[in-house]
């Protein structure tokens, strides 16, 4: 087998190269030739093609994403901001936490189990790379309609994959969300989030500094799996699933578990200068990013890379996305100690090169130079596109056909029937069929997990400090108005975190959209990013990282635009956390915030009328801030026993969940003058319900009055009558509610 070398490339400038098959456009190829002053070798072409893919280079999104950094609010809480593997937040007392969410959508469609499993594996390594111990995962999932055949194939596989990998890794899964819409048939979304904990002085960065320092590849061997994952799979629209299967990586959670423990010992012994995980684009990405962020030069002896199959070509070695691999930069004097720790954990580790002062990444294959490039041109100077943008004409129609003529339930029995229908809709119904497949207990620090408003973990068993995280997103809102939809996603996650008693501090996001080559999709994207950046600025919570997933469409039909937003908050005493379960007899139930007739994009319209239209609920970020402040204060001072944010299916869903989770009934009274239907089903933002023990009643209402937060007493928790009763309208026994709420997913998926 002949290998294309730099020497050969200089000699044969006119040789045809298969750049289109690798996903590069004519002008991109021309640019590579210009950068190098010659044609690229086939290995160089491989590196540029994977690194300049949409997935790695953000070429369509970059010009819009800039505003996330430009508009980022000033905060002391951020230790590492956007641009590194993950953002790092100051959690107080010398603790730091790092978190990030990332998509693995296309692989999860092609091969649900491995696609989802390696999605978890990838995000965990991103967190590990920051020098942290990963402490929890959560995920945001979207599937087609529950009864679609594709959903029956994809959902069980995705859930088993997330569980299979995360459980075996020993990371508690502390929540997330699942919802359904027909636009996700053929395009499920699997967005995986991980959070890690470290001491503030232990943060590690991906940098290759110090001439003569060694480059060590450690972890699994390199195989032929996942080749072209980022370019072929993640950066194009596709339909023929089977043919792409070799582009999906295969995960081995056991290998990752020992890699985590091995890294913890390496971090503790202070043995590394820099570290990078190998994920999308494999060694091409790790070497060019490490070199770009360091002194700029690196020499790699590629034939030293341990292979699963000896016959692999250098191009395959550079592009392989084999999982469970890391790359570290180590001073020569510390190499022996590094290798000793790896041996203890039976982790394969190989010195594959060293840092140089040449300013170039040079890769040698059996003595011949096959790559000689300025690393920044590969990692950071890829193409940037200003894609055409056009507001889709149907946007106006959504506003016009607002569902105001849909028949609304009148009184009593009709409201009762609507409640049961909404509670049993797959988006609102019990998700324990999914979450029971995830270990939520391991590591012994899980304070809150699904179905709570947010997940919460204690940072370590010797502190009371903890973090709370919520991920949210609503594709229906975002379709109707992407600017508002993205803001509502942020507001909901922010509110969820605050309702547990934690102070929201930072944001991660995963932007799932159709093809960027469609001007209508680009309009949705631009609006969503603008909305998110503006809202982060107002709420004072910066975006610390995340990712973009384009090309989520089947044929010409894109998915609902789905910005998923994760918010992380810190709580200094986890024993003060607030759950959403009603807890004691006689506790007063208060509705905080204002309820308006806002049912555009609502769960009621979807579940009862299968209708999508109108305007999403209005956003009032100052109100969100005030609501959060009051809930956090009330939690700290022990004024409230439960809190539940109001979002999908409004008050109706929140009441049902608080009753069922606590196993306690509630008597509810519709406030004077309010329309019972709007009261129950409106999805107005900036609202929550709390239950307040009688002795705290005055303190709590005084606090709301002082702070100017609308607070309406709507009922009382009742131990003796196990039912949800709305006075003068209807009552439903908890057993009936539980039956309706818990049946759908269990019945469908077994």
């Amino acid at each position, binding site marked *: 087998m002949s290998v294309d070398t730099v020497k050969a490339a200089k000699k044969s400038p006119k040789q045809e190269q298969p750049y289109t098959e690798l996903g590069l456009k004519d002008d991109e190829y021309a640019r590579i030739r210009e950068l190098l002053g010659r044609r690229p070798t086939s290995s160089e072409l491989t590196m540029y093609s994977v690194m300049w893919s949409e997935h790695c280079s953000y070429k369509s999104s970059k010009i819009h994403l800039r505003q996330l950094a430009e508009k980022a609010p000033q905060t002391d809480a951020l230790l590492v901001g956007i641009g590194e593997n993950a953002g790092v937040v100051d959690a107080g007392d010398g603790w730091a936490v790092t978190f990030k969410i990332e998509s693995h959508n296309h692989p999860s469609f092609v091969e649900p189990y491995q696609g989802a499993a390696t999605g978890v594996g990838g995000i965990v390594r991103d967190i590990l790379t920051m020098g942290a111990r990963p402490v929890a995962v959560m995920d945001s999932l979207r599937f087609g309609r529950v009864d679609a055949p594709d959903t029956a194939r994809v959902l069980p596989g995705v859930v*088993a994959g997330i*569980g*299979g990998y995360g*459980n*075996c*890794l*020993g990371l508690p899964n502390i929540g997330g969300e699942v919802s359904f819409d027909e636009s996700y048939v053929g395009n499920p979304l699997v967005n995986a989030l991980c959070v890690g904990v470290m001491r503030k002085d232990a943060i590690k960065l991906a940098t290759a500094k110090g001439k003569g320092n060694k480059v060590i590849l450690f972890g699994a061997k390199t195989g032929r799996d996942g080749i072209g994952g980022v370019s072929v799979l993640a950066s194009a629209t596709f339909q023929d699933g089977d043919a792409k299967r070799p582009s999906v990586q295969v995960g*081995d*959670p*056991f*290998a990752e*578990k*020992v890699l985590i423990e091995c890294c913890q010992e390496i971090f503790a012994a202070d043995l590394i200068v820099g570290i990078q995980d190998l994920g999308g684009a494999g060694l091409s990405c790790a070497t060019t990013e490490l070199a770009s962020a360091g002194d700029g030069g690196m020499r790699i002896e590629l034939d030293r890379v341990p292979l699963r199959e000896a016959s692999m070509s250098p191009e395959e070695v550079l592009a392989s996305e084999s999982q469970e691999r890391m790359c570290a930069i180590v001073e020569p004097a510390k190499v022996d100690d590094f290798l000793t720790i790896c041996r203890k*954990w*039976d982790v394969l580790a190989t010195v594959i090169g060293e840092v140089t002062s040449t300013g170039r990444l040079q890769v040698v294959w059996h003595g011949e130079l096959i790559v000689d490039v300025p690393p920044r041109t590969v990692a950071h100077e890829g193409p940037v596109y200003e894609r055409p943008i056009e507001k889709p004409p149907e946007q106006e129609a959504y506003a016009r056909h607002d569902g105001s003529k849909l028949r609304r339930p009148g009184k009593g029995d009709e409201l009762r029937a609507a409640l049961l229908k909404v509670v049993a809709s797959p988006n609102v119904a019990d998700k*324990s069929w999914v*979450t*029971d*497949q*995830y*270990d*939520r*207990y*391991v*590591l*012994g*620090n*899980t*304070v809150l997990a699904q179905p709570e408003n947010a997940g919460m973990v*204690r940072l370590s*068993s010797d502190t009371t400090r903890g973090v709370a995280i919520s991920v949210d997103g609503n594709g229906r809102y975002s379709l109707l108005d992407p600017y508002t939809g993205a803001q509502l996603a942020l507001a909901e996650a922010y509110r969820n975190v605050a309702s547990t008693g934690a102070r929201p501090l930072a944001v991660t996001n995963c932007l799932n959209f159709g093809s960027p080559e469609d001007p209508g999709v680009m309009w949705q994207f631009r609006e969503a990013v603008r909305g998110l950046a503006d809202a982060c600025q107002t709420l004072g919570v910066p975006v610390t990282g995340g990712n973009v997933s384009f090309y989520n469409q089947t044929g010409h039909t894109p998915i609902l635009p789905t910005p998923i937003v994760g918010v992380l908050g810190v709580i200094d005493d*986890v*024993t003060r956390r607030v759950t959403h379960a009603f807890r004691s007899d006689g506790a007063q139930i208060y509705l905080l915030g204002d309820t308006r007739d806002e049912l555009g994009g609502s769960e009621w319209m979807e579940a009862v009328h299968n209708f999508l239209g109108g305007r999403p609920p209005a956003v009032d970020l100052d109100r969100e801030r005030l609501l959060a402040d009051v809930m956090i204060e009330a939690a700290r001072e022990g004024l409230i026993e439960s809190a539940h944010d109001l979002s999908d299916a409004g008050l109706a869903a929140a009441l049902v969940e608080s009753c069922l989770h606590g196993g306690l009934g509630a008597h509810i009274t519709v406030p004077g003058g309010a329309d019972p239907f709007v009261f129950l089903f409106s999805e107005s933002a900036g609202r929550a319900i709390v239950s307040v023990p009688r002795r705290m009643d005055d303190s709590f209402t005084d606090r709301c009055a002082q702070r100017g937060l609308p607070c309406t007493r709507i009922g009382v928790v009742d131990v003796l009558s196990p039912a949800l009763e709305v006075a003068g309208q209807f009552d439903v026994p908890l057993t009936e509610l539980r039956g309706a709420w818990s049946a759908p997913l269990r019945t469908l998926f*077994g």
Partner: protein
Amino acid sequence: MSSRVGVVTFPGSLDDRDAARAVRVAGAEAVPLWHADTTLNGVDAVILPGGFSYGDYLRAGAIARFAPIMQAVVKAAHDGMPVLGICNGFQVLCESHLLPGALVRNDHRKFICRDQYLIVENAETAWTAGYRHGQEIVVPIKNGEGGYVADERVLDEIEAEGRVVVRYARDNPNGSLRDIAGITNDAGNVVGLMPHPEHAVEALTGAGADGLPFFSWAAP
């Protein structure tokens, strides 16, 4: 003076730190033991924790059985040292023939994590003396291969000898024969169970504190 309880870490052990924490919460001293060690470092008891030792390759617990530390554990168990195997640790004890039977894939073919009702049926073992006979407790389960099986003769024998330590109550989560959740050996010093008492030692982070007595016998 409190007991020193060893907690073994195999590659792929996951609940080793949880088990050690439970030992400390109960007031005893937790001593980390490494799979490649050949001695037990003078401990008074040993816990084989949950997880996926060696990735559960081949069969859950099948490779861990051959770890150097297991020779010492098996010998100590035969000499009467209290040994507790939780989840994967139970699988290792069965593979090591310290306990009869085997654990197979759950009948519904899924991993399951939930808070589980159990009945304590033997409160005389080294690990369950802190309970009352017939006591109902809630302890989390989390397993994919938790279905306890053995042939009829063995099942009859362990039932007759009162060697069923805990039994699933209200609802069998995985198809275990005769709802068996945990068993002991003839001498009552070796106990294996699928549920995770180490995840029920404090209400804040677990399913209550019903699991604590498994560990508190070792406290002063």
